[in-house]
């Protein structure tokens, strides 16, 4: 599993983008899945909409990869909820995923701006 850590995950589909958004959301502090949903929904102006259930396979996989860790706590309305937080490894991953994402979007922007002389 060690080699997989620093190599950027495949960002060629929404799954990669979802991981990036989750990591970015958790930069604010520990959150439960519902909190992450609201946060992403809020910061993306409702543009990014995936089935909310798809968040959970992503979260559990990221936990297995050691990017995030989880523990049970109590939510604002006094219900038991599973909270996720960013690990040191996750912070590193966020940085590298972010660089990767920016490189790709810049490359696409360049390609789109290209006008034959």
């Amino acid at each position, binding site marked *: 599993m060690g080699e997989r850590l620093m190599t950027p995950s495949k960002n060629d589909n929404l799954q990669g983008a979802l991981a990036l958004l989750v990591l970015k959301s958790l930069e604010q502090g520990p959150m*439960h*899945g*519902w909190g992450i*949903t609201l946060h992403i929904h809020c910061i993306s102006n409702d543009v990014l909409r995936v*089935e*909310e*259930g*798809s968040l*959970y*396979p992503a979260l*559990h*996989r990221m936990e*297995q990869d050691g990017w995030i860790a989880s523990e*049970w706590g109590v*939510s604002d*309305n006094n*219900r*038991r*909820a*599973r909270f996720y937080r960013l690990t040191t490894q996750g912070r590193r991953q966020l940085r590298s995923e972010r660089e990767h994402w920016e490189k790709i979007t810049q490359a696409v922007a360049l390609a789109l701006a290209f006008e034959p002389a």
Partner: protein
Amino acid sequence: MSWISRVRALFEREKLEKRLGEELEFHLAMREQLNAEQGMPPAEARQNALLYFGNPTLWRERVSEIDLMLLPQTILQDLRYGARALCRNAGFTTVAILALALGIGVNTAVFTCYKAVVSRSLDARDPAEWSILR
């Protein structure tokens, strides 16, 4: 050893599934509550929450698959942790191993004696023919 880990995996699995169910139900309940606060009638609030979420059974199975991949890993981790703990407490480990060795050894010796002295057939050509006279 393997059946112990299998039994453990079974219990762990149950625990994982229960927690996962609780986690997903929390999400649905929160969406439902938000809908209700926005004035939806209860039945519609639940229906709408499911619409947002997608098929809960499907997502549950997906997550379960991921969780179960973790199990063999954690068992290995536990074993390694156990081995390290034993190495750290060399004194305890030595005493435990000696106690086990002594216990097994004495047991074997006593049973061997018992078998040789008491629980053997009679030195006769046809012991079934013998009878006890009082």
